[in-house]
């Protein structure tokens, strides 16, 4: 429907009303639409449709001749289901290493200097603190170096946007600290198109985390030894402090942020301000709308399932080479691929694994 068609005749007779209508149309277009919700809800509705179709599908006719076989069929099916469930329980959450140590990453000085892309097929990393690269995990492709604006600082952290088209790069400098947003195309070498998100004297930033819609970035802001989590819009100049703590990770629905305070993983509900304690650990990462994976103080991985009034935690079986030494797990969008940073002697190593 064209906009003009909505204007009734009496409204159009008044030119000032026409101006007002045009203004309303402009403002209507300025009200944002949550396209991520649109995609997620579509999947949810399709799932519900499948359930409804099953509920409404006709039941098989009850015939005397086939009843005995049906009973055996039910028993047989049940046995198969039980076996499948047992098999699922045995193999579920197993982490299988694809590459125990990714080559060339020992130049990274901290776990947050290497990040797994949402597609699980690329990584971005900082080498020697002053060079930024992306590289595919398959061996037959070359890495790409990103040339950022010439500054004297060192890159402290890197984080992919959920679209995989941007990186947040934290620059640490003795005078000024910055967060850059870098446009990237993981499929090819690019001279980076970048813009400055935030710049501040006297505050150190780290652990940036993109909101699910990529419209905001949460990060740790440290001043005078005090760590706080702040959120900055990637579109406007708006920013706000959300809580005290560090290592924020945005929930898939954008309504909560997992974070660390005093060595304990907690979840902040952004709507209510309620903080929920999950357990001792670091580097929380949402792996489902109600599940958070994090590293225990002993260097292993735990998955916490957030029930309505309780938290159920299970250890994730990790490869022997990484056991008791894990620093951080960085997950792909579908939570199947994992980049694991772990202590290897005096330095950090980065392994690539898949979850089954």
């Amino acid at each position: 429907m064209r906009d003009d068609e909505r204007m009734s005749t009496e409204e159009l007779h008044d030119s000032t009303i026409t101006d007002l209508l045009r203004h309303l149309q402009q403002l209507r277009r300025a009200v944002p639409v949550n396209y991520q919700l649109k995609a997620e809800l579509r999947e949810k509705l399709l799932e519900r449709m499948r359930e409804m179709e099953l509920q409404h599908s006709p039941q098989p006719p009850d015939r005397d001749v086939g009843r005995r076989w049906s009973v055996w069929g039910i028993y047989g099916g049940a046995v198969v289901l039980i076996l499948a469930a047992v098999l699922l329980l045995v193999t579920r959450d197993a982490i299988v290493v694809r590459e125990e140590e990714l080559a060339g990453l020992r130049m990274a000085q901290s776990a947050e200097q290497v990040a797994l892309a949402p597609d699980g097929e690329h990584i971005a990393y900082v080498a020697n603190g002053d060079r930024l690269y992306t590289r595919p995990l398959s061996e037959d492709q070359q890495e790409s170096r990103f040339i950022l604006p010439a500054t004297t600082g060192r890159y402290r952290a890197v984080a992919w946007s959920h679209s995989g088209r941007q990186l947040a790069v934290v620059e640490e400098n003795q005078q000024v600290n910055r967060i850059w947003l870098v446009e990237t195309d993981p499929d090819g070498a690019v001279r980076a198109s970048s813009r400055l998100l935030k710049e501040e004297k006297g505050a150190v930033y780290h652990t940036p985390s993109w909101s699910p819609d990529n419209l905001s970035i949460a990060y740790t802001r440290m001043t005078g030894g005090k760590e706080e989590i702040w959120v900055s819009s990637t579109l406007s100049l708006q920013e706000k402090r959300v809580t005290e703590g560090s290592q924020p990770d945005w929930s898939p629905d954008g309504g909560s942020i997992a974070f660390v305070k005093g060595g304990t993983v907690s979840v902040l509900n952004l709507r209510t301000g309620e903080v929920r304690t999950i357990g001792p650990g670091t580097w929380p990462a949402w792996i489902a709308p109600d599940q958070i994976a994090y590293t225990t103080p002993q260097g292993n991985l735990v998955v916490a399932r957030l029930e309505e009034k309780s938290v159920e935690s299970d250890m994730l079986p990790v490869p022997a080479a990484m056991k008791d030494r894990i620093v951080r797990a960085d997950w792909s969008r579908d939570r199947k691929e994992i980049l694991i940073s772990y202590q290897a002697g005096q330095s950090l190593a980065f392994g690539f694994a898949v979850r089954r």
Partner: protein
Amino acid sequence: MGMAMKQGVQEPVSPPSENVEYFESRSFTELYDEYFDKVNRYLRYRVHNPWDADDLTTTVFLKALEKFDQYSRTSPFASWIFRIAHNTFVDFVRRNRETPMDQEELFQDEADDTWQPEQNLLTNEEVLLLRERLDMLSQDQRDVLTLRYFAELKIHQVAEVLGKSESSVKMISYRALQQLKRLYEGGNRDER
């Protein structure tokens, strides 16, 4: 549940007879694809907290799916879905009159590859200003204007959603626009 709801693959739906003037033959998923933006935008405008608006949008389409076999297809889907959306909004307002976080605090802006912070802030301010002025109108006037200009419904569709006559909606719309115009011109004079 009609088979027309299968995953985007729609079995042919035939009009019941040739003398039916309007017949909606599209599947639920096709209608969802078209109307999500309008419903989400309408609720984001009416509810100050965008997360609440998104929750309400989810509720609207889940309700619509459950009731889709009750949709007659001989009336516009827009009226039907916005009746659900409007009722869901009214229920929400009745249940929860407080919004703990304002829309502008959450930066829930439309994704835009163009870096225009000043433009963005300006538009936010304008939207907030309009919302303030709409709050000075009566409930009926707000309902009519938001359904008509933010949900993009026609007069007769607004009338169906609100259960009013078309002439009544036209009159409310006309008076609301005049009032809004005066508020813009005269610096928020409340002439109700």
